């Protein structure tokens, strides 16, 4: 397992280099003179030169790239052109907001998706199976923004059960520590605020969870059905094992591999898909941070934002691969 982890980590290096080249190119592929474009049409020549210096655009290309990578290695993501603050400081709260939202929806999607899939497979062709697969099909087909708006209309406007905007009641004052508000409120031990934070999370998390939940349910079901037909499941039954353990131990572990792949993929997609949900629910996440940066032509923020999101994507994939190897001993030995 250790050797496999090391090998897998080494394989990350070329990926990360590739990503840094691409994000580096984001600024340098701006047509015409990047400094001029960044400064805007009406900028004075001095301002354009200032920006050129500031971004190091007067240096030769290879040197610019090396400086950029050197910065990255020290955790320096550059400075925002607009606010002039280091991006690595600025981006944290936005990243945490998105991570909190995405992880919550993934938790919902995995819990319900996996269990729906298991029970559907277990009770194949029962009314439960049919109902949950129809729901899954609907879940996959519903556009997230429409679902989000419907949720707001029903649960926030009409029933007034849940808030529809932001991460917590704006009247509450809290000095964030981790910027994961659920964790922060737990640290402060303030259950009332925790409840408020959770209430804010529910609608956007559910909206975001629908599609992955439906996909996970379907994959879990088909994967379980396939495994249930296999010889070793028959062996497990022939030993006298109870149906519960046959399903949750022998079948689930074998069925987990394709399910994990999908969970990893969906987690990555959620990261990107969160932008829309964040907009609908005014969630101050990375989506909004990037959206603002693009509309304000804050190129360095766009560049680093993409790099951070892409890195998270890669790390999620790494995590999924390591979990595979942990589950399936055949992978570590190089046999698939």
């Amino acid at each position, binding site marked *: 397992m250790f050797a496999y982890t090391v090998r897998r980590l080494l394989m990350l290096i070329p990926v990360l280099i590739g990503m840094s080249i691409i994000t580096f190119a984001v600024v340098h592929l701006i047509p015409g003179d990047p400094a001029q474009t960044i400064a805007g049409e009406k900028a004075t020549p001095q301002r354009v030169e200032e920006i050129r210096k500031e971004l190091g655009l007067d240096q030769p290309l290879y040197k610019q790239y090396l400086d950029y990578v050197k910065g990255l290695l020290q955790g320096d993501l550059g400075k925002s052109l607009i606010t002039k603050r280091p991006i690595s400081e600025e981006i944290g709260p936005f990243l945490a907001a998105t991570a909190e939202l995405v992880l919550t929806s993934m938790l919902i999607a995995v819990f319900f998706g996996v269990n729906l899939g298991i029970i559907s497979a277990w009770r194949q062709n029962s009314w439960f199976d049919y109902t949950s697969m129809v729901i899954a099909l609907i879940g996959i087909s519903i556009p997230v923004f429409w679902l989000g708006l419907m949720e707001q209309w029903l649960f926030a406007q009409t029933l007034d059960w849940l808030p529809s905007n932001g991460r917590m009641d704006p009247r509450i004052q809290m000095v964030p520590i981790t910027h994961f508000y659920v964790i922060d409120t737990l640290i402060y031990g303030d259950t009332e605020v925790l409840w408020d934070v959770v209430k804010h999370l529910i609608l956007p998390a559910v909206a975001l969870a629908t599609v992955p939940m439906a996909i996970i349910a379907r994959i879990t079901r088909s994967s379980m059905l396939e495994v249930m037909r296999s010889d070793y499941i*028959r*062996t497990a039954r022939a030993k006298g094992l109870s149906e519960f353990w046959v399903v949750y131990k022998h079948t689930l572990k074998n069925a987990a591999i394709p399910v994990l792949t999908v969970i990893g993929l969906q987690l990555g997609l959620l990261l990107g898909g969160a932008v829309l949900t964040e907009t609908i629910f005014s969630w101050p996440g990375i989506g909004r941070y990037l959206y603002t940066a693009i509309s304000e032509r804050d190129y360095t923020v766009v560049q680093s934002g993409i790099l951070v999101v892409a890195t998270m994507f890669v790390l999620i994939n790494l995590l999924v691969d390591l979990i595979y190897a942990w589950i399936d001993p055949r992978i570590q030995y190089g046999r698939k």
Partner: protein
Amino acid sequence: MSQSVLEISELQLHFFTDKGVVKAIDGVDITVNEGEIVGLVGESGCGKSVTSLAVMGLVPNPPGKIVGGTIRFAGQDITHWTNKQMRKIRGKDISMIFQEPMTSLNPLFTIGDQMVEAIRIHKKCSKKEAQAMSLSMLEKVGIKRKGILDLYPHQLSGGMRQRVMIAMAMVLNPRLLIADEPTTALDVTIQAQILDLMRSLNKEYGTSILLITHDLGVVAEMCDRVIVMYAGQVVEEADCCHLFKNPTHPYTQGLLKSIPKLDGNEKRLYSIPGQVPHPLRMPQGCRFAPRCEYVMDHCWSQKPELLETEKGHLSRCWLHQAKEGSGNNGETNATNATVESS
């Protein structure tokens, strides 16, 4: 009667599928006595596996359902036992090993995990004790490899895996072991070793064995008694040597003729002409009629029963059943047939 471990009588098991009712088992009588090795032979698809799964209560239901007959194990009628009742005896009193050693062990759990599990389902003991039991049983089946308990199935060969399966099946000392083509997937030398092993376990523990195979050579070597199945029915039953010397059912005669001989006189391999009937379109009378060289008129319309021809020798064929008007003709034919094949 009290010595019989397994007693299946007039079993009927049908699969209710979308296309129609498949009468996969339609008249099966099998008795396995204490300490006996009984062979169950027949062509592919004749219902050998379904019969054994029915004993274990593992036929998927739906679509499969026992519609007639009884299965008695150790004197108890287990025909309609619930899954929960069956679980108590599966793996403890009746064990089963399967044809596919490569895929019959769960690839994600170690050999140790899987053996310990098999023990601790039925026996209250610590993990340590279960491991010790596993190790000594594995040693009995000829696996002395160090650290075997920590290995995964993919690290073992097919023959090794089948040994593990046998060890797992035998570890609680069951009264009956059902072996469904345990050696079909293995090469010849390994096959012989596995058969030897089963025979010695039978001797040592007195475990009764129902050995399913389509290899008459294996039967001749291993079994005390043989039961021949054709298209979901038992068509002949006899002591092993008796059956080989004096087969009475035309299907059995065909099977024996189709064993390749090494004396070189035979120009080509004999095979029974025709094909197994389609499960949805079984012949009305004798199921073997379309392929039988002795077929008579009433064979087509009337079902023969499984009746004793001599003591301990049963056959399902009109040739041996006094059917008024045609009996004589039949008897002579049968004698001829016997002479021809021996």
